[in-house]
């Protein structure tokens, strides 16, 4: 039996935050929530406080200088988590403005300690801690006793078994600040602004004893409070490919043949083609075929107005609940947010087929700050989805360029397990469409370039054009040695 101390981890009540923290908040830890004005520090503190405080484990919220408590109460009430009934029961606000104005840190510490002794809180918040520091600096002694104050506060709170949060405005994380050293946890909030878009990001710069998720994590603030978009947890052991490969029907029998019997389950498929070539129709057929076999699907639409121009089959499937629609109109999406939306819809419907229509629209929906990493993001999304066990069909707008053979404008073709490419060709003054299966990983597939047309029944695959050559150049010529026709 282990005699080592067990550190309890508290569930913060902030969606996604426990994951980012590496399993919750260590009990009795001494933390700093830092960031510039307006980044959500006070809201984060309140959300955790209302989630964690109980009459048995009450919270003390010390307001210092800065935001007047009346206003804080006024605005925090707008959030769903705010419960007036908890005030003066499990949550107690204490104003220390007068003590702080005097600038005597010892007095502030004494007040905090006496309130803590009086109420034995499990949670202590000090907002804003920065103002305590500034007030002490206006004193005659610029060399104030701040390090000592922080050190004592940290020690006292821990021995009183209180999980503590100092909330402070800090602008640069490279400052050498005694608080940064003493704190067990450093939660840094930021607003990243690029052009006209703003994205909120959170970073756990430090959390002692915890395997936190590194890097910046996006979050949103809505009336429900803060929601952090933690990256999807990846299954470290991916299920090995099963043989014989189980395959999904595409809803177009000839296409299944071309794919070598259908799309292998759990594969990602890229359908690349020019505008109007029928990518969305193929995607809808793919979902309809699933529904016909009792499978459910999810479609993420970034391009078309969902109620406006969708084809009737798809609209019907969405209506009947066989297909879930992810249609986030939220501006400035992050990849993690989209993945989370998709995954929650997938698990809600136990979906097996997922469509993303289209990657081009998806890129536009992302906040500009994420577009630079688009390929990387896409790779993460594909991995997250396929490791959830679903089969993914993605469409990609492809400008017809007859001088080079490309399958996606992003150099992302390698990310997917299978690729279907569609093109226009000109034959006898008509614009015809051809389709080919370019790649199906670990599977035999057709190498044919097949004509196809789109009619009321969807996509109809026709014959090859064996007497024409140079199809991929867009302007095929009749083969000299072929059958004569005139």
């Amino acid at each position: 039996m282990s005699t080592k101390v067990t550190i309890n981890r508290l569930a913060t009540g902030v969606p996604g935050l426990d994951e980012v923290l590496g399993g919750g908040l260590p009990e009795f830890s001494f933390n700093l929530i830092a960031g510039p004005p307006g980044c959500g520090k006070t809201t984060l503190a309140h959300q955790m406080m209302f989630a964690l405080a109980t009459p048995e484990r009450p919270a003390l919220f010390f307001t210092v200088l800065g935001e007047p408590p009346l206003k804080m109460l006024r605005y925090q009430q707008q959030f769903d988590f705010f419960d007036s009934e908890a005030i003066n029961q499990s949550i107690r606000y204490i104003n220390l403005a007068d003590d702080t104005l005097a600038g005597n840190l010892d007095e502030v510490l004494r007040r905090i300690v006496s309130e803590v002794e009086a109420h034995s809180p499990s949670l202590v918040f000090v907002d804003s801690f920065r103002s305590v520091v500034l007030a002490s600096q206006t004193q005659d002694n610029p060399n104030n006793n701040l390090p000592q104050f922080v050190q004592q506060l940290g020690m006292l709170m821990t021995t009183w078994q209180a999980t503590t949060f100092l909330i402070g405005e800090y602008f640069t994380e490279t400052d050498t600040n005694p608080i940064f050293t003493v704190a067990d946890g450093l939660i840094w909030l930021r607003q990243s602004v690029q052009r006209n878009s703003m994205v909120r990001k959170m970073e756990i710069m430090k959390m002692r004893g915890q395997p936190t998720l590194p890097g910046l994590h996006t979050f949103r603030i809505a009336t429900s409070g803060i929601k952090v978009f933690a990256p999807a947890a990846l299954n470290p052991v991916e299920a090995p490919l099963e043989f014989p490969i189980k395959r999904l029907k595409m809803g177009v029998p000839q296409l299944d043949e071309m794919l070598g019997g259908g799309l292998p389950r759990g594969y990602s498929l890229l359908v690349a083609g020019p505008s109007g070539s029928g990518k969305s129709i193929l995607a809808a057929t793919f979902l309809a075929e699933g529904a016909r076999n009792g499978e459910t699907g999810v479609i993420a639409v970034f391009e078309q107005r969902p109620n406006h121009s969708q084809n009737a089959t798809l609209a019907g499937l969405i209506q009947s609940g066989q297909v879930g629609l992810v249609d986030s109109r939220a501006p400035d999406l992050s990849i993690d947010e989209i993945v989370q939306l998709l995954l929650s819809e997938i698990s809600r419907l136990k979906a097996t087929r997922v469509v993303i229509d289209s990657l081009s629209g998806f890129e536009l929906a992302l906040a500009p700050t994420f577009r630079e990493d688009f390929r990387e993001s896409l790779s993460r999304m594909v991995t997250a989805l396929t490791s959830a066990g679903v089969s993914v069909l993605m469409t990609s707008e492809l400008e017809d360029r007859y001088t080079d053979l490309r399958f996606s404008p992003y150099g992302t073709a390698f990310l997917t397990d299978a690729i279907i490419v569609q093109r226009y060709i000109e034959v006898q003054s008509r614009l015809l469409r051809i389709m080919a299966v370019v790649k199906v990983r670990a599977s035999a597939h057709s190498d044919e370039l097949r004509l196809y047309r789109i009619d009321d029944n969807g996509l109809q695959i026709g014959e090859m054009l064996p007497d024409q050559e140079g199809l991929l150049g867009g302007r095929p010529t009749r083969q000299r040695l072929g059958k004569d026709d005139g």
Partner: protein
Amino acid sequence: MSTLSDESRQIVASLAHRVGPNADIATVAQAIASILQDMDAALTPIIGQQGVAALYRRSLHLCASNHPRLAGTYDSVQASLDLTALKSVLVEQSEADALFFGEVLLTTLYELLTTLIGPSLTARLLRGVWEPSLSDTPSQENSP
């Protein structure tokens, strides 16, 4: 403020309870001051002394502009939350006037707080002030 809200009625009732029957002017003044003191005790820990003082000042101003008849009385009350000063002004009035003054001031203060932090939180924070009026301990101090 033509129609009395539930809260206003509660305030009026609480004041009447603290004043008691056949009270003299000193008792009326003491009752008003004690309610203000209880409100102060309930609010100061949360919004600070200065916050309460500012609310009080604003309430006096609103009372004076809504009830010109009482403007003279309001003007002579110092804007700082000085209950001794308030009482000394009140004892100069008739019992009815002082009581009316108290009702208006207390309801105004309550409603002002409601516009700022909402009815439920206001009720929550000040619950302790009115609760004694339901029991038989009229001047219960709020222990900090």
